[in-house]
């Protein structure tokens, strides 16, 4: 039962749901059985969130087990470290440059981890790539498109799936007025890796 498992992590309300929607639809379009598990509700209020997306010939569980994720796409830096136990050996971690300090950092005494610490934490498991998601999204026209930059970066690890397929799914799922920005963000992301 071979499957490709994507773990998308971030902070509630910051674009994980749209990104996981695109990633699922691309899998379906590419002919896979796909399952997706998301968190709605309370955690969407600024909490830590993760979406599980699995592609394969036949998928049973919608969840990725511990040590089973092939790819982690972290829309927020600190969140990347929180899910390290989900990665399999040799997994690829793509980490965006958005930082959202939790309240425990701004009003409490906790420290926000630096890039070195994040790299150390994750490279023990696999390959770590930092993606300038905010900067590239801004270049594309809107920082909110940082999720598409991340998908663009991810797409380079799956050369068998044509960029046109990703782009056509993005066109379908994002609001009409932001198609160009999102396309552009995806393309900048795919050139960054």
């Amino acid at each position, binding site marked *: 039962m071979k499957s490709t498992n994507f773990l998308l992590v971030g902070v509630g309300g910051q674009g994980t749901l749209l990104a996981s929607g695109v990633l699922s639809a691309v899998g379906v379009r590419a002919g896979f059985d*796909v399952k997706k598990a*998301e968190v*709605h509700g309370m955690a969407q209020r*600024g909490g830590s969130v993760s979406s599980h997306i699995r592609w394969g010939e036949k998928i049973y569980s919608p969840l990725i087990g511990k*040590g089973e994720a092939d790819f982690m796409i972290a829309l927020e830096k600190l969140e990347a*470290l929180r899910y390290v136990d989900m990665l399999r*050996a040799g997994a690829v971690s793509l980490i965006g440059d958005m930082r959202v300090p*939790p*309240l425990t950092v701004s009003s409490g005494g906790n420290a926000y981890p630096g890039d070195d610490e994040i790299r150390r934490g994750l490279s023990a498991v696999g390959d770590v790539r930092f993606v300038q998601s905010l900067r590239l999204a801004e270049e594309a026209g809107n920082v909110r498109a940082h999720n598409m930059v991340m998908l663009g970066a991810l797409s380079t690890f799956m050369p068998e799936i044509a960029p046109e397929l990703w782009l056509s799914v993005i066109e379908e799922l994002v609001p009409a007025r932001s198609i160009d920005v999102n396309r552009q963000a995806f393309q900048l992301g795919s050139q960054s890796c």
Partner: protein
Amino acid sequence: MKQEFLSGDEAIARGAFEAGVRVAAAYPGTPSTEILETLAHYQDVYSEWSPNEKVALDVAVGAAYAGSRAMAVMKHVGLNVAADTFFYASITGAEAGLVVVTADDPDMHSSQNEQDNRHYARFARVPCVEPTDSQEAKDLVGAAFDISEQFDTPVLLRITTRIAHSSGLVALGEPRSTERDAPPEYRVDRAKYVMVPGNARRRHPIIEDRVTQLQAFAETFAYNRVELGNTRLGIITGGIAYQYAREVFPDASFLQLGMTYPLPEKLIRDFANRVEQLIVIEELDPFIEEQIRLLGIPVEGKSIFPLCGELDQTIVRRSAIKAGLLDASPSPPIEQKEQDSALPGRPPLLCPGCPHRGVFVATNKLKLVVSGDIGCYTLGFLPPLGALHSCGCMGASIGVAHGISKADIAQKHVAVIGDSTFFHSGIPALLNVAYNQSDTVTIILDNRTTAMTGHQENPATGKTLMGQPAHEVEIEDLVRSLGIPLVLTVDAYDVKAVETALRQCLDSEGPAVIVARRECALLPEARKQWVALSIDAERCNGCGLCFQIGCPAVIRSDVVDAKSGRAKAQIDVLLCTGCEICAQVCARKAISFRDA
């Protein structure tokens, strides 16, 4: 055949449409909310948000009495609220299909407790069906309506968070025709529908007999399926647990139960006889396991798999290895690395610009004991605000505060309750405060929406679920008519005004209500008015008062005040909405107001 990628919730809505449901009623609640939100797009189905789950179920019952297929939808704790109706509906049956959807929340992703609602099925003698994925979620709606009509019973369709919010491919079907030539006549049958003791006594044996017939039906029910593999291990399972079990034991034999009450005795015995060892894998309570034990069949379940929280393939695999059902070696590596436990936590929180924050800053200032309720404002209990001191279930705050008043405490105290929660179950409690007279002060946090579950309409928003204009209830008028003499309205962003109103209410005799009104900052109209504030670094001395309001947009900067040695505050312009609550608490006037 057309396929769509649907969540379990969306699939249930589609299933309801295909099954020819005419009336659907619900009260929002994670993880069930998206079912009615999706169904509302099908114009042929009448869908509504009722003020609470009991009303929703009564509405569905009425429609089914009147000969239309009807569905009521709720989260697990909603069925506690609707339980009274659920029981009478079981006894009466109906004239057309009646399906109750309960969305349980193992692991309490968004709930105050973890309860296994399959017990309600057995308790009320109602069949329970459980899908294992989105496809079955859709298909079982139709099956449930057929069962409901064949056996004259409500049917409980039970899903869990991982069914509701997981998506998969679903093959769509054709909708059943609901055309009718003329409105149907209401069929009068007093003996069946008027539940006085004499009639109910006659009905009871009928529903017990119905269980026996359903048991026989379950033997051949298409969704009770045997998948024979290696017969050394036989696994009986249902719902999402099937998927985890399938993943961990690819070669075992399975009896997958699409109907978990009542159980097919013969099918289970036959299956048990064909396998060497029999186990049950189910989430939460040993519901299937105990029924199988009662049949005298040796079985293990909760001695191997955990009772609390959700399962997943990792938990199932670990438990199985521990119990010697699996070898440790050939299974995939588990845990490359443990999560770093020193990482700063990130619990959900009150959003930047949340109007509830203004009220909590005021109650904290007055050191009030606060009886809380359920909604976004529950998050006010978290540090640094720590402003809420109890929270049990929807509508509890006012009754609890009344009890506290009657018991007398040294401190002053108040109840806080959201607008939607007030309509849900706060009104009778406030009526009690007026009737039995206590000094209870109730703050109604009117943010003009049902925010926590994703901004649903409610009786005060002026719109229905299907987008129709509606009467907007005036909370102040309603409260006065219940007999509350002192009713004040304030802007929740105005901390001083909230504080002044609180002092007035706490100092006066008798019950009082404060309506703290300000629309949720995430509503489209409010978003248009977002303006980021700024902090004058010269004036800020790093005292940290603004950090104590718990706003994610107020962060520590890298600049340290030379005198105090503390980090100065800074505003995250991407997050700030300009509510000015931080500006009001700043003692050094370092934070700009909007028009400054």
